[in-house]
């Protein structure tokens, strides 16, 4: 089972983020999702929302380019996570800018919910810049909509387990896994947005999941700048996913 880690660009600051990414690259992480700070990260939970607030002041294009370059040189693929609401005003120039950064794809958590009527236009803007869309699908995405956006996608799909991160409503991984697989078919599914602990990672591995994404859970280490704790956590995750 592949491992994707989520970080908000510029959080807690650029130096600490670099240190964490280095630990990640030394511990078998396959993919990194990098969140562009947004003033309204509405589908993230309270913890990730806070990182956006802090990161707004720290974000720099050059730092992002360096990060992606370094990740790619270690064989780690990098993906941009972007809230359309923060870039819609100048979407084309934003996409043109990041197309040269070296990302392998882009995740747009608000595309299907808030920009559904303009989706085709946004998908063609992405194609024009040669940026792959990684569809973000949740249990509330209607089947027909999910199937359409998946047909536009490359290799993998991001499946959010909850309507929003960081909230702890009950769910059954087994049911959600079955439902996701039924809609997505044989394409690779990355489960995230609500993974809370090691037993869940183990369960997904046993269910036969292709990959997982972890975000909120890393914040306790980032906040404390605790790279040692982060490394230990990754080792635990690696045992659970292999």
């Amino acid at each position, binding site marked *: 089972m592949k491992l994707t880690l989520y970080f908000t660009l510029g959080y807690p600051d650029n130096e600490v983020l670099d240190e964490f990414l280095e630990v990640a690259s030394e511990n078998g992480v396959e993919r990194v999702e990098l969140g562009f700070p947004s003033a309204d990260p509405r589908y993230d939970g309270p913890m990730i929302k806070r990182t956006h607030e802090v990161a707004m002041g720290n974000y720099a294009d050059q730092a992002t380019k360096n990060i992606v370059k370094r990740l790619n040189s270690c064989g780690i693929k990098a993906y941009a996570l972007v809230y359309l609401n923060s870039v819609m005003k100048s979407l084309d120039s934003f996409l043109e800018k990041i197309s040269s950064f070296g990302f392998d794809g882009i995740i747009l958590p608000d595309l299907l*919910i808030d920009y559904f009527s303009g989706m085709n236009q946004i998908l063609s803007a992405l194609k024009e810049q040669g940026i792959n869309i990684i569809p973000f699908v949740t249990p509330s995405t209607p089947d027909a909509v999910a199937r359409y956006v998946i047909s536009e996608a490359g290799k993998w799909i991001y499946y959010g387990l909850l309507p929003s991160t960081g909230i702890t*409503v009950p769910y059954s991984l087994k049911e959600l896994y079955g439902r996701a697989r039924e809609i997505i078919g044989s394409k690779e599914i990355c489960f995230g947005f609500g993974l809370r602990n090691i037993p869940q990672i183990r369960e997904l591995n046993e269910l036969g999941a292709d990959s997982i994404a972890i975000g909120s859970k890393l914040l306790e280490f980032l906040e404390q700048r605790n790279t040692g704790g982060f490394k230990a956590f990754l080792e635990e995750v690696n045992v659970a996913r292999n």
Partner: protein
Amino acid sequence: MLRIDQDEILPDKWYNVISDLPEPLSPPISDSNDSSSIELLNRIIPAEILKQEFTFNRYEKIPDRVRELYRIVGRPTPLIRAGKLEEELRYKGKILLKYEGGTVTGSHKINTAIPQAYYASLEGSRSVVTETGAGQWGTAVALAASLNHMKSRIFMVKVSYDQKPLRKTVMELYGGNVVSSPSQETEFGLGLLAKDPKSPGSLGIAISEAVEYALKNDLKYMLGSVMNSVLAHQSIIGLETRKQLEIEGEEAEVLIGCVGGGSNFGGFVFPFLKSSKDIEMIASTASEIPKFSKGEYGYDFLDSAGILPKLKMYSLGAGFIPPGIYSGGLRYHGAAPSLSMLIRNGRIQSDEVGEPEVINALKVFARTTGIIAAPESGHAIATAMRYARKNPAAKKTMVLNVSGQGNFDLSIFNKVGL
């Protein structure tokens, strides 16, 4: 009335429309930058209900015990041909009635009260709390709680509490404990009473009081409409109707129901959305509460105090105090997100009827069907009459959801005489 094996009509699964919507449903959001209002649902709503609310299985198995209780309270409800009403209206098509007033509590509300109470009791709860407008929901909760060996506390909107004293007696007979809202039992109620001691209350206010009370006393809270899980439970109305039509060899061409929060209507029509035929669906609401024509489509609070999360829906504003019409169940500022979406994209039409026309429709209906329908259902009846009069030669089979009976609402006729 159909007289066949009832077990064949009573479905074994509920249907949840979310997977079949044309667009994704916007998730509930908190007002502030934390998600405390979503988190608090964990404290007051049974885990199984929350799971159904957020993870959307297209079909959810109805637990055996719930099915058994459905039978005890009178499910399946009858599907009745209203031949005399057709004659009266000189309508060339058929008019069929799905009569939810045929349950023992007299409305569709029992359909979700039973599973919510069942899951609450399964998770160890000994008492539930809720609000009620006209009293149908409170009545259903009082009985569902007793059937599951629990107590219930019910905040009843003041205008209905004053208008319908017998409702209170019924709820108490079923084992419920009823309080007029705004009440002195919550901070929100006390605040409102300080500002306006004569406040008629509203469903939004009563929800806020019930939630506050549930949080303070560590009780499970039951919500009567709007939520996805509630509409899914109510799908039993449409699923039964579909089966009954199939057995009769009929096909629905027009579906009409009334909308307060949208649960009886959604439960009735959603199971027909995937039919091969393009069935007309008309949601009838009160012109005194014009949510679909004057309301805004956007995020708004479920309750007046803003304790619960915001949902994307048609709303007249969470602070809107509806006029004191008899159809207490329609006195609500918003409507279920899934229904709101389908009205906005034009799949479902809406109609608004004012109280005088409703009263007249109820009279005609009583004299041609024998059914004393609830005032809320009177809106659907009035809309059906408008449809029949406008299209007398349509020959379309119309199915009307009569969401409840109105034996406790007879004072509605005092205003105008019979």
